[in-house]
């Protein structure tokens, strides 16, 4: 499904970046990324989410080479990606509810859409239901991250990239998050997770790669 070839990304603020990485992710893969540098794991997930332009190398999705020179060509792909990571954001001048509904409001061309049952369940179980009319800036960091996770899971993504769920979602809600992941059609999805939580990885991952000093080793 996803194929990165000779993918090279310069290091950002921290980490070593990626150097000539070859990586593939097929439908049904839940790939664990183990690393001693969380920043590099973040860079790989960001690269998979097409959020970084590579210095060198190519990104193939379902056999098609992605064109990073025009961001518009990446929009239909980004729409299919669930990205639960520390640099995922919400639009600060909209309420949490509006943020959760934005994609549907846009594509269904109506402001009258309401949260569907799946989103309501996610909000209730993530303890967000009383926070929906607040702006993102009024939420605690952990509540904001749970709201972002809700938005990404409600997208029904075909590719899902998760950065350290034990930190991002928080241990208090990790069990519910795991149950939600289990309920997703994982055999139809390509998933990559960076995590240090052995229990979480044992439960979901069916393959593992190790990222060290910007290079990737498959195990």
């Amino acid at each position, binding site marked *: 499904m996803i194929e990165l070839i000779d993918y090279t990304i310069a290091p950002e603020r921290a980490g070593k970046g990626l150097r000539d990485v070859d990586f593939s992710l097929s439908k049904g893969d839940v790939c664990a990324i183990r690393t001693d540098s969380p920043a590099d794991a973040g860079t790989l997930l960001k690269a998979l*989410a097409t*959020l970084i332009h590579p210095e060198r190398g190519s990104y193939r999705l379902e056999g098609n080479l992605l064109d990073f020179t025009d*961001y*518009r060509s*990446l*929009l*239909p792909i*980004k*729409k299919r*990606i669930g*990205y639960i990571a520390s*640099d*995922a*954001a*919400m*639009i*600060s*001048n909209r309420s949490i509810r509006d943020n959760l509904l*934005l*994609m549907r*409001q*846009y*594509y269904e*061309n*109506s*402001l009258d859409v309401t949260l569907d049952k799946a989103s309501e369940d996610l909000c209730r179980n993530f303890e967000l239901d009383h926070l929906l009319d607040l702006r993102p800036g009024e939420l605690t960091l952990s509540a904001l991250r749970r709201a972002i996770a809700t938005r990404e899971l409600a*997208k029904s993504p075909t590719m899902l990239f998760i950065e350290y769920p034990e930190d991002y979602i928080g241990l208090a809600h990790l069990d519910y998050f795991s149950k939600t992941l289990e309920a997703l059609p994982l055999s139809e999805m390509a998933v990559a997770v960076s995590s240090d939580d052995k229990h979480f990885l044992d439960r979901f991952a069916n393959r593992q790669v190790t990222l060290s000093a910007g290079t990737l080793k498959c195990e």
Partner: protein
Amino acid sequence: MNYIAGSIGRWAIGSLTHIIDILAFNYRMSMLFFHRPLEGRAVIRKVIVEQVYFTAVQAFGLIIPIALIMGSTLIVGFARLSGQYDLGKVMVLLVVRELGPLITAILVILRSATAVTTEVSYMVVLKEIDAIEMAGIDPMRMITLPRFIGITTAILCMFIVFDLVAIIGGYAIVWVVTYIKMGDFLGQIGKAITGADIAVSVIKALCFGVTITVTSLTHGFSPKKLMTEIPEKNPKAFIECFFYCLVVNVIISILFYL
């Protein structure tokens, strides 16, 4: 000597690159009018209404007193200076052709252009633009188009309000408060004003709308990683908007009246 030449060269290249960026942004924004998918119209309409509200409706409390003060001051001054028979022409020349669009533009720059630059800069730094893209939505369409339509519409509305309040309100204040003879002031205005005056003012308002939106959004969208870069962008956007509006004003005045 080499240092001075190098500095001038870098400044020239930087300025040229910036102007090309603004023109490219303008081109991309114009293209949005030709590519009009059905999806997203409801969301964009909502943002347009919000922008008109923030830029025009909230500014009426400011522009009406300014228009009254300017209108009455000009009427008093020119009624004494040039004699009552030229007053209509003078008011049309000053208020409708020049001051109306310019003062409206300055108010919009002070209130909205800086706000738009700050808002979009924050969106860039806080990765909110990425969040919009991750929803499969083109940020140019979602952020730029409604602000362009909203600000341009707002300038047009504010300019009409400014002209009417400055002329009619200014006249009413002078008539009530002073004994200055103004003759048939409103009749003189009616005779002095031509279709070209109204057309030029509308064109100026539209061009100011484009200039202010494009300049403030170009600064807003420019790549930045740190919050501390945002306060640097605001004064630059403000001064550029003001300068470009003056240039546009002169060009339109020259084209129509000389």
